[in-house]
């Protein structure tokens, strides 16, 4: 039974698009980190062995031969929808969509199909999932023990680069991570900040949570509503405080329109819910340590 979107070493992983340059490079890193990658797909190269993995024409073909829990997609934007529907139809439980610039209507079709089939999607436009010391999937240095170290802090981030920096800061402060959940930078996501918060709240290996948010949308406000009911401490950093309104800041989701999705609104909602909101990423470990002081801090 998978704990997706919390990644476990026992999760059997299928890489869609395993033979491309990025698929090859990052699958190599995932294998180094101990991820249980069991197969890959490429519609044109079925039957070959790549990185020691069997390559199938489709997720359905892979499922006919083996059991798979999670599919991770290294496919270009126009091909994401069909690859995702293939994996969901085959019976996947969890789908990680790394691709950026997937058409919104394609993702809505994927979400609709996933909902009807009981599958969960993370992304699109996510950097991936890391459970330090166990496994990682995605396009981040999950295999680097200087950055990701086992521990009891759960981290949720829209951004891969900023999320990586936050984990580095935590590790250096002696606070290891139970799980990193990259939810993605798109405006509509398969797993929201609130849903990731719920998963980490239920996780017995997690004592406290860091939420790394961004301006735009209402996801942090929704997460705040749930955080108000939590016993575990939550600290947050929201990027985009000085971003000019009305301009998209790289991520499709990061835009402040007509006053909605503003830094001030998100910060106020989180603080009302008892979340400690910090001004700089570097302040996160100390803020968490203060909140965790009744507990024994993790030593790296």
């Amino acid at each position, binding site marked *: 039974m998978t704990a997706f979107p919390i990644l476990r070493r026992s999760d059997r992983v299928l890489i869609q698009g395993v033979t491309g340059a990025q698929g090859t490079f990052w699958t190599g890193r995932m294998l180094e980190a101990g991820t249980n990658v069991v197969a890959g797909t490429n519609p044109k190269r079925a039957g070959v062995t790549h990185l020691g993995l069997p390559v199938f024409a489709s997720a359905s073909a892979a499922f006919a031969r083996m059991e798979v829990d999670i599919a991770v997609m290294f496919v270009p934007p126009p091909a994401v929808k069909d690859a995702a529907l293939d994996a969901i139809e085959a019976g996947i439980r969890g789908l990680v969509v790394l691709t950026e610039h997937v058409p919104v209507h394609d993702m809505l079709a994927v979400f609709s199909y996933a909902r009807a089939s009981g599958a969960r999607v993370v992304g699109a436009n996510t*950097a991936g999932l890391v459970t330090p010391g166990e496994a990682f999937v995605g396009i981040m240095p999950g295999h680097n023990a200087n950055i990701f170290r086992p521990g009891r802090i759960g981290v949720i981030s829209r*951004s891969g680069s*900023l999320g990586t920096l936050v984990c580095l800061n935590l590790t250096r402060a002696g606070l290891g991570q139970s799980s990193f959940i990259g939810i993605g930078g798109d405006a*509509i996501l398969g797993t929201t900040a609130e849903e990731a918060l719920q998963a980490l709240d239920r996780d017995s290996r997690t004592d406290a949570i860091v939420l790394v948010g961004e301006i735009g949308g209402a996801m942090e406000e929704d997460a705040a509503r749930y955080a108000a009911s939590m016993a575990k401490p939550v600290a947050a*950093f929201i990027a985009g405080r000085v971003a000019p309104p009305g301009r*998209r800041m790289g991520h499709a989701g990061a835009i402040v329109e*007509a006053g909605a999705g503003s830094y001030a609104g998100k910060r106020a909602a989180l603080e009302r819910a008892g979340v400690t909101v910090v*001004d700089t990423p570097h302040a996160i470990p100390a803020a968490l340590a203060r909140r965790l002081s009744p507990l024994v801090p993790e030593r790296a």
Partner: protein
Amino acid sequence: MNVLEYHAKTEILAPAGIPVPAGAWCENPDTAANVARCLGQCVVKAQIPAGKRGRMGGVRMAGSPDEARAAAEDILSRTFAGHRPVAVLVEPRLPLIGEFYCAVLQSPRDRSPLVMFSPAGGMDIEEIAAAGSGTIARHLIRDLDRFDATAAAAMLEGMGVDHVKPALADVLARLYRLWRQTDAELIEINPLAELADHSFVALDCKFILDDAASFRQPTLAACAVADPLTGIERHAAALGLKYIALDGNVGVLANGAGLTMTTMDMVSHFGGRPANFLEIGGDAYVKAEPALALVLGNPNLRSLVVNFCGAFARTDVMARGVVEAWRRLKPAIPVFFSVHGTGEDEAVSLIRSEFGKEPFDLMEDAVRAAVEAAS
């Protein structure tokens, strides 16, 4: 990407069987006067990709060709929320007996399309919402293939529109089909006007195309209005980079949208002002050289902070790009680095040998040093 009202009506609504007024695109006041001569009482509307035009004086009633000419002349000489209209739309004034609001958009919370209707059209949806509950009908579409006139009629129940329900339901069903066919993020008719014979006409239409789908919507993408860009921003767009000019003097180069916004935030936190937003995350990490050249092209620059945290982006590749740009342009401003993550060892030794300085361990310290150097 926004599509102008005129194109939304003629390219999207009318071909789908949703009636629109018989208007004309006028790029100069004389054309507007000529059109008004044929139409009689008319409306002159600024064609800009932004809402609230009426309040900014961008929608004028004209009772004669001279009034239409004067309205067009004024509108075409002005800027509305940063947009200069390239044309006005001149339409006949229609005698209406009712105004409705109709829209299809996506609901991030529900990960589904959302159809919205209100009998209180003519004002912004935020104002309708503020006016009280019960005036907006919302219908979430869980199965994307299932929203027809029957479902639309069901959502109109209790909205006080029974006398025109089939016709309104037909418009809503057509609007949803259109939304799907056109890769719309938003399609909104406000107001949908009811005429004396209980027929309907779309008086205004807002349409936003999903940028990511423009490859398969070439016709709509061609008439979509791009953001008004400065010279550097346009140059960046041609290189496939997202650059936003800001009014400060501390240049920012970072990878990933989240880290770049954070670096800007830190500049402000330490009392400085960022000069730009520019991120080279994702596939763009190989473009550090042209990206930095863009940042350095800003004459206001007094210092630069380079903040890399490599996940997908390799910091060694980005650092090499920085070095190449620096050698080529020989800028006279101080630069401050913080580098972590994928490729870190190589990147740090390259920076050490090329710049004779050590990257800051904390990005906050690198930003603080850059702010101090700029002040």
